[in-house]
């Protein structure tokens, strides 16, 4: 295996940001939308609670934000490590 130090640093940076994004991804859907909903039941939103909002709207909005953030962040990392497309 070609152990290119820059390539392995690039991959580490990528894995780190994927991990962070997937924690948020799971937190807003499986967390706030489903399992942790009882914890949010005290926060009213339009006739129901915050957990319901995350299940039907909030999670989707956060998903979009996550993908655009990841695309933007990776473009920067690509350039910093010199692996961007020319």
């Amino acid at each position: 295996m070609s152990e290119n130090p820059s390539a392995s640093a690039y991959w580490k940076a990528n894995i780190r940001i994927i991990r962070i994004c997937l924690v948020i991804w799971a937190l807003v859907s499986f967390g706030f939308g489903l399992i942790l909903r009882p914890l949010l039941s005290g926060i009213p939103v339009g006739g129901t609670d915050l957990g319901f909002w995350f299940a039907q709207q909030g999670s989707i909005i956060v998903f979009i934000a996550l993908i655009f953030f990841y695309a933007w962040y990776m473009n920067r990392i690509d350039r910093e490590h010199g692996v961007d497309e020319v």
Partner: protein
Amino acid sequence: MDQFILNLLVVGATFALYIGIAIWARAGSTAEFYAASQGIHPVTNGMATAADWMSAASFISMAGLIAFVGYDNSTYLMGWTGGYVLLALLLAPYLRKFGRFTVPEFIGDRFYSLPARLVAVLALIVASVTYVIGQMTGVGVAFSNLLEVPSHIGILIGAAVVFFYAVLGGMKGITYTQVAQYVVLITAYTIPAVFVSLAMTGNPIPPLGLFSEHTASGQPLLERLDDVVTDLGFREYTMNHDSMLNMTLFTLSLMIGTAGLPHVIIRFFTVPKVADARWSAGWALVFIALLYLVAPAVGAMTRLNIIDTIYPEGTDNPPVQFEERPDWMRTWEVTGLVNWDDLNEDGRVQFYNDDSDDFAAEAEERGWEGNELTVNNDILVLASPQIGGLPGWVIALAAAGGIAAALSTAAGLLLAISGTISNDVVKGWLAPNISERGELLTARIAMALAIVLATYLGLNPPGFAAETVALAFGLAAASLFPALMMGIFSPKINDKGATTGMLVGLLFTVAYIFTYKGIFFIPGTNFLPDTSEYWVFGIATVSVGAVGAMLNFATAFIISSMTEEPPEEIQELVESIRVPRGSGGAQDH
């Protein structure tokens, strides 16, 4: 103008548009046929992906699924959108860098194994064929209910249009027609929703209207909905009733199934660069969210509307006389999607939950002898323009939108099927020396045959058609997604590990579904009744794909650790797909 003529004009105009695009975007090479020469702008591809992904089920059925169940079916909303995060972060950029044309081709090359490639072909074909049946029947439903054209003629017309642009244009023709179809379907979906939201809450933006005040009662809309449904013995709309483990696994199955569906993945082969594949997934989700954020609002508002029109004096007073029933009932009872049966012969429309033990005493006291009204989920979206009292051209647009949603998804599935047959089965296995022209011709013939098969199955749907969506998502989740992800993220996974993992995931998922649904869905061949007390840990058949995926991962890791490492050049291949540089143009091979 007569509504029938208007419907035909609007639907006919959209068909003429699709055919015009097909003639303009003909494919001249396999690179154009499979991947539109990787020249599609990321925003354009995002829009085409949205149409590719949103099927007849999303357009026609989803609002109804949420309306009649409430919070518990939020799983569909999160599951069918959350998959795009997985796609953008874990698959799309790397598969685009790999730069070939089909999903099994990646699996075959990465795991240096023809059996692995053929297992992937099998999973792809089963998942896509079962999925396409639903699209063809969806075209028939839209034609028969909205255009008063018999369902089988509708299917034949739809198939002829798809035949024209898919065989001629391949991915290139399909991409640009999908963009047009997205515009048609999103316009058709949102216009009635805006009017319904405005009428019920005074807010023209449906997702905001959902959490606003219900103008007529002065209560928040969702609180009002909870009140009226519980008054009739139904379960509270905003509350949780299903098992949390099952909901979590179902959502996860939909997410990884979405990320593993080949007809969605191949759309990301069409953009020029790896960075574009990342942006494009974001745009796809933006365009999908326009519908998915509106759907729960349409669902909740229309459910409340239906109850208000049946109980104009409030739920404490007797329901409406059948002779004075609302217009939407009159229209839709003709199609059989709305049914009234006067069980207690009082001439009124009792609509309540007769399965509720708590409500039985009140029902008896009020002289009700069972629920008299059944409303099919599917009319919610198709009838909403009429419930909102909108002009004729909006009703015509709803028909065109439903057909656009079904045709765009059908075309994407047919391309995935025909591409895998010509690229993986014929070129990759049976006739490796086939020429470029020969392969293009094979792809066109495979496309034509796939359309004929899909049309036949649409005209004669097997009895299990409705059950098979679970199978399509389960297979994609349990077989394809783990293999693709390990192919990129775990360089040590070898041919034996990946192939066994896919087979274990696939067989486990199929076996679990057949145990409760019957072997090949044949009634009476199931080993256990399909009810929650017989499910293992209460896991429903639709939720089992996530478990199959975990078994696939575990098997692949164990087998790979016991057998020899992948050869040097495969580990180098993995290194190379991980970095964007050098993605280049289409590789003709």
